[in-house]
């Protein structure tokens, strides 16, 4: 018996032809505006490019960054400190807020709206607002401290407190989308689990520790991964409030990348920085997913 060779129909005769046509604009947009620039930046990272002349230099941009540029390391260390402190604080804050807003009290919808509102303020506007809060003489923060007899520091002007100020400001976002995701996660936990736990005497902290946290762990992982990626990319607060100062104390990685790209027009070096950041984020995300198996529990998963 001669095997029947399935002959592929030409595109215009296939049922899915129009599907391809309709996704074509998105596909073109993706290739032109996402994949294209992505590959373009990889190529540029191997070149010396100042918007005028392009010269192939191989891996020299990477070598210069890693071996000859102290500001690269300074910005990396600043950003790492920012990530290490702001991500756990932010996650905890968002979770606590979500737990509070998950209570069945009157007017809870109003509270949820109120706590979500700050995240709707544009980043530049909130940075300017915080500039006033941090004002050493007339700022709300130092005024509050003075009420309890503490002389507040010069938050943004002192290199020893400037980075801490940016971390403090990052907590402004705890009521944003991260809180909403936690809230959705909390509402997805079945009441039956708490009822079963209560029968075994698990209430309050015990219920939180042994029911809420494990059931919420996929959400925590999700927020952790996004939080780390977002914090490594911190830019607006440093750009608006301190512009990297004083004495490079708040020179964040992406701010330094921006300076290289759009102030010094070293676009090759800036592209190399972008790819180094990509590798760092890939590494962190891989580690997080590798370790996730130890603490993330999915509903229905075998124990």
């Amino acid at each position: 018996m001669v095997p029947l060779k399935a002959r592929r129909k030409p595109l215009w005769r296939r049922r899915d032809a129009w599907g391809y046509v309709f996704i074509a604009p998105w596909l073109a947009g993706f290739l032109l505006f996402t994949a294209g620039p992505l590959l373009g930046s990889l190529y540029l990272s191997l070149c010396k490019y100042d918007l005028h002349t392009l010269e192939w230099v191989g891996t020299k941009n990477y070598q210069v960054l890693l071996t000859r540029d102290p500001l690269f390391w300074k910005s990396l260390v600043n950003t790492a400190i920012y990530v290490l402190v702001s991500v756990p604080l932010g996650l905890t804050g968002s979770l606590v807020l979500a737990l509070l807003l998950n209570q069945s009290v009157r007017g809870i919808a109003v509270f949820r709206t109120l706590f979500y509102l700050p995240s709707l303020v544009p980043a530049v506007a909130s940075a300017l607002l915080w500039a006033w809060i941090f004002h050493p003489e007339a700022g709300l923060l130092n005024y509050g401290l003075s009420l309890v007899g503490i002389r507040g520091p010069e938050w943004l002007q002192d290199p020893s407190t400037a980075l801490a100020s940016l971390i403090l400001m990052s907590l402004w976002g705890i009521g944003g989308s991260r809180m909403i995701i936690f809230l959705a996660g909390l509402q997805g936990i079945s009441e039956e689990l708490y009822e079963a736990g209560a029968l075994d005497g698990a209430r309050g902290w015990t219920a939180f520790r042994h029911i809420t946290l494990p059931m919420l762990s996929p959400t925590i992982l999700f927020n952790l991964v996004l939080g780390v990626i977002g914090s490594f990319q911190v830019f607006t607060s440093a750009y608006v409030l301190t512009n990297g100062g004083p004495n490079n104390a708040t020179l964040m990685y992406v701010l330094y990348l921006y300076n290289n790209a759009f102030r010094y027009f070293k676009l090759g070096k800036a592209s190399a920085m972008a790819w180094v950041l990509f590798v760092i984020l890939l590494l962190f995300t891989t580690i997080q997913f590798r370790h996730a198996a130890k603490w993330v529990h999915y509903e229905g998963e075998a124990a």
Partner: protein
Amino acid sequence: MNRRRFLTQASALLGLPVLGFCSGGCGGAATNRDGRLTLRYMAWGGPEQIRVERRICAAFEELHPEIHVHLFMVPGQAYADKLQLMLASRTAPDVMRVDQYFFPALARKEYFLSLDPFIAAEPLDFLEDFHPIAREEGRWQGRVYGLNVLWGGIMIYYNQGLFRAAGLPDPYRLFLQDRWTWEQFVECAVALTRKVGGRVVQFGTNHVLFPLYASVIWNHGGEVMDPDMTRLVMAEDPGAVLGFQRYADLRWKHQCAPSPAENALSPFAFESGRTGMVWGWAGETPRYRRSIRDFPWDICPTPAGPTGHHTLVKGNQLVINRETRYPEAAWKFLKYMTSPDAERLLCTRLRRSVPTRLSVLRDPAYLKTDQPPFQTEVFLETSERGRVFPIDWRYQEWVEQFNTGMEPLFAMNERDARSALTDACARANAVLAGEDGF
């Protein structure tokens, strides 16, 4: 469906957005309007500046009815970025204003049309009417690429009301008597500083970023760079060290200038009436005229030092895009924008700058005014005592490194001038010695 029909319909569907995009965005940058040639001109400035520039453009169009000037102003802070991106993407206007801080870097990339052939076709003494310093600023490697506009120097704006209240002599009178020295300046600044309950409510002077106070270095015998502009020499120059230390002393020793914390969000801006003397460009005048209503103010030169009486002068360059389709028309416009007529409007009416044209500078009408500042001879003084700062094509990067290196002296009071300069110059010299592009 047959092949032809499928391809026709799919192409029509996919082609629509492209057509829509093109109808909005494609096409030539400069187009003819009513049979006239349209010349695009980009600049930046405040509302007063826009009004005056529009008037100059209108006057030019009257003289040259065949040319229409499309003036567009870009906010000052975004100007440099936009200009560089437009030049790189070959969408830059025909004529544009460039701050001297960026001029060498852009001229080096050959973005501008050399003006030498146009100047050669003008009368022999065409350049003679320009102030020599202003003329030189527009040169790059021996060729003229820009003609100077909005030129001017650093001067002291002072609050006459505060001087009178403190019983201090008028600084301009002191200057005329050759007594406006650094010591006298510090004395006035200290006397003008006022504390209430341990908190400073009024400062004698302000603190500006380098290189705005370069005159303090020069007037103490210091130099900024070596003559070849290859490295900063301030760390090993005793005059420069002294100048920097004295400037820092205003803030930390005499406490007559606000610290960064005290000056956060600018509570002591000159307009507030809470600062006796501020260092600023001639170009601050229109803003002060607009915003100061409740105290008398005027201008005087920067103080002299033990070895000199210089002040920093700098301008902007008016340049022609090398890619322009209308070089002749662009030259006509550029020539008019830097003509005595235009300078009279910019410098006399707006008082935005010091004329680069000697004929305007020497014109008695230039000195007449019915609004402050009344001591207009100071504008002449700045041009006579003016000195240019060494701005090379890597200026943006090295000055940022230098200023960061000086923060332990000026922002944190943790080091003395010599130690801070050693670090700051090392940082800046590393940039200057480093390979271009990395």
